[in-house]
């Protein structure tokens, strides 16, 4: 019962919303689609649900043409970023609404609604009106409504985007357990957040400007990003990408002292490359190349320090909360053993080889 999209295209006013999207969505798997705002994620979900016509391409479910299936027969449920509940109905009736329309028996409705509400932790909230619920609870109601229908395809469009981070943290954990309970449903979940895509996804699809750039397990896309664009999208903060050269056993990066090339890059031919380095692999040091702090962000338990060296911007991630003022001068050190090498067009040439092994603790 795979859902297969082949070469889906949609152009609106000369802008590609879907550009030859080809993907296979499998039952019992959670697929996360990660991309920035406007990458085409919502359009893709709407096309799968039949809410958006495409210009060309095909869509099949278990081999049958899905594009010709009318919306109401598509067996899909969708949860939106901006949670939608009926304000005049209580929680029970909100969840029951589509089931009543489907003319299920009263007992069956009650059974399904109760089960769905229990699974999102709202068993005791049946009688409340949406306005009496917090944002997180309202999103859970919307989620329960989608789950209760028991559809074969569950589409979730950035369901946590409008919640604050403590709630996102909590719901992510809950969703993980919830989705592993959905049996054979095909679940497709869009997000702009790398950690969310990694945590929840069995399969991650990286989307940019209407195209699927890479599909793989979370580990594959994170450790072997096919292009600089993928590397930037799947890392938060985005991976640092900068131009450099390999020459006579040395790595040179504008503004930095040449360093001895690490083993993993040693056999690459000399020439110009784009290098990638995660924010965790750049550090503030007592010696190194000087740069100016342009911005400091705090993200839960980490500090992201934005630094400009010459013309090149870097983001440095340090554990814990640190106070740095804009305009401070700091010294940067790059870890040569962690460099990703891309060619000048941005295609992956070599990855650092550290994280594919499991170790006994450290």
């Amino acid at each position, binding site marked *: 019962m795979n859902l297969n999209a082949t070469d889906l295209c949609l152009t609106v006013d000369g802008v590609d919303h879907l550009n030859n999207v080809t993907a296979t969505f499998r039952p019992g798997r959670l697929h996360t689609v990660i991309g*920035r*705002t*406007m990458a085409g994620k919502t359009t893709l979900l709407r096309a799968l649900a039949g809410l958006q016509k495409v210009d060309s391409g095909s869509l099949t479910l278990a081999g049958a043409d899905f594009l010709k299936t009318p919306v109401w027969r598509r067996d899909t449920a969708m949860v939106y970023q901006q949670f939608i509940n009926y304000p005049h109905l209580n929680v029970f009736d909100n969840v029951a609404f589509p089931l009543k329309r489907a003319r299920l028996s009263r007992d069956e409705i009650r059974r399904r609604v109760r089960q769905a509400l229990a699974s999102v932790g709202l068993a005791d909230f049946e009688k409340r009106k949406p306005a009496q619920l*917090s944002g997180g609870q309202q999103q859970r109601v919307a989620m329960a409504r989608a789950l209760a229908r028991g559809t074969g395809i569950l589409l979730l469009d950035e369901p946590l*985007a409008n919640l*604050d*981070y*403590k709630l996102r*943290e909590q719901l992510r954990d809950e969703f*993980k357990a919830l989705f592993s309970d959905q049996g054979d449903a095909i679940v497709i979940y869009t997000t*702009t957040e*790398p*950690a969310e895509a*990694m*945590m929840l996804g069995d399969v991650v699809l990286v989307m940019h400007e209407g195209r699927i750039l890479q599909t793989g397990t*979370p*580990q594959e896309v*994170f450790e072997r990003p096919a292009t600089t664009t993928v590397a930037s999208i*799947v*890392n*938060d903060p985005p991976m640092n990408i900068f131009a450099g050269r390999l020459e006579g056993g040395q790595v040179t990066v504008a503004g930095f002292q040449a360093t001895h090339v690490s083993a993993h890059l040693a056999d690459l031919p000399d020439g110009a490359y784009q290098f990638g380095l*995660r*924010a*965790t692999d750049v550090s503030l040091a007592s010696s190194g190349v000087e740069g100016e702090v342009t*911005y*400091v*962000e*705090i*993200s*839960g*338990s980490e500090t992201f320090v934005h630094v400009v060296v010459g013309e090149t911007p870097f983001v440095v*991630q340090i*554990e*814990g*909360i*640190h*106070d740095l*003022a*804009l305009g401070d001068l700091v010294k940067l050190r790059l870890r040569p053993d962690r460099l990703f090498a891309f060619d000048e067009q941005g295609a992956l040439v070599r990855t650092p080889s*550290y*994280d594919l*092994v*499991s*170790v*006994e*603790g*450290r």
Partner: protein
Amino acid sequence: MAQLDIVDVGHAYAPGAEEERWALKPLQLTFESGKTYALVGPSGCGKTTLLNILSGLVRPSRGRVLFDGVDVTALPTKARNIAQVFQFPVIYKSMTVYDNLAFPLRCRRWDKARIDAKVRQVAEALDLHDRLGQPARGLTADDKQLISLGRGLVRDDVAAVLMDEPLTVIDPQLKHSLRRRIREITEQFRPTVIYVTHDQYEAMSFAQELLVMKDGRAVQQGTPEQLFEAPSSTYVGYFIGSPAMNFLTLDRGDGPFALGGRPLSVAWDVPRGTTEVQVGVRPEYVKIVTDPGPNTFPGRLRSVSDHGAQRVLEVEVAGQPVRVKRPREDGVPVREEVLVQLPRAKVLPYADGKLVLRS
């Protein structure tokens, strides 16, 4: 810019309510001149009530509000000389960007040359200098919010800038850059800023000091670093940091501190006996080690969550869950049995949900 003092201020929306039910329990606060503060907490925590008391929209049931020592408690908003930025941009749509920025100065009858110089200076900082002649209605929501802020900054004498969730209507992708702009601008002009938000990231990235509020009380005031390193309550430990701080209940009894029958060496002393002692330790500071040593405890690996550059392991120690956050390069333990180390200097004591420190 002014120093704002909140002296024994409390507020109840329902007259005669008992203090326990007040929207804002009586409190004492000082907002220093030229600093940025964020009021942060879940909805209903009292942060907006406090902001409205500062702006004069709400007259507190008790206490006094001082701006540079002058009692303004009875003064209406317009007499307080504050600038406000709301959730939704408030601009004059029919006016140009220039006239929007100049408006508050014209109302104050500044002369033309002085207005012009000031408007251009602020427009430069807002990056709107090349759009001064444009009608404001054509701007995007984030630029409109910058104008709202700019209208406060043009006035040299403004006592404070009050912002109420100013990023609410901004596209997620632009939130980051607008927050950055607001911070750059406030660092340049150094107004006293009080910024209300329910988003911890936003508060920590923006403000020099945070005031965490809950149930109408100010739970803790401090720099982001202070709140992270030494949360004054288990609530702040949960609210600040991701994942939340771990809290472990120690063995009861009069002897030395112990967890699951094994000694826990700590850098402080607290009275034992009647109250249950919990220790708090951040997931960033817990270590997985290979060899037994001081403060190591056997645990069982329950789950591994891959966040990308880090993994979060959940380990059960003495029957209690402990989260461990570690760099990806440290890999995943191969066996279910692991040794967890709680570094002595990073373990803090809590009783009845409050930090109790006596070194």
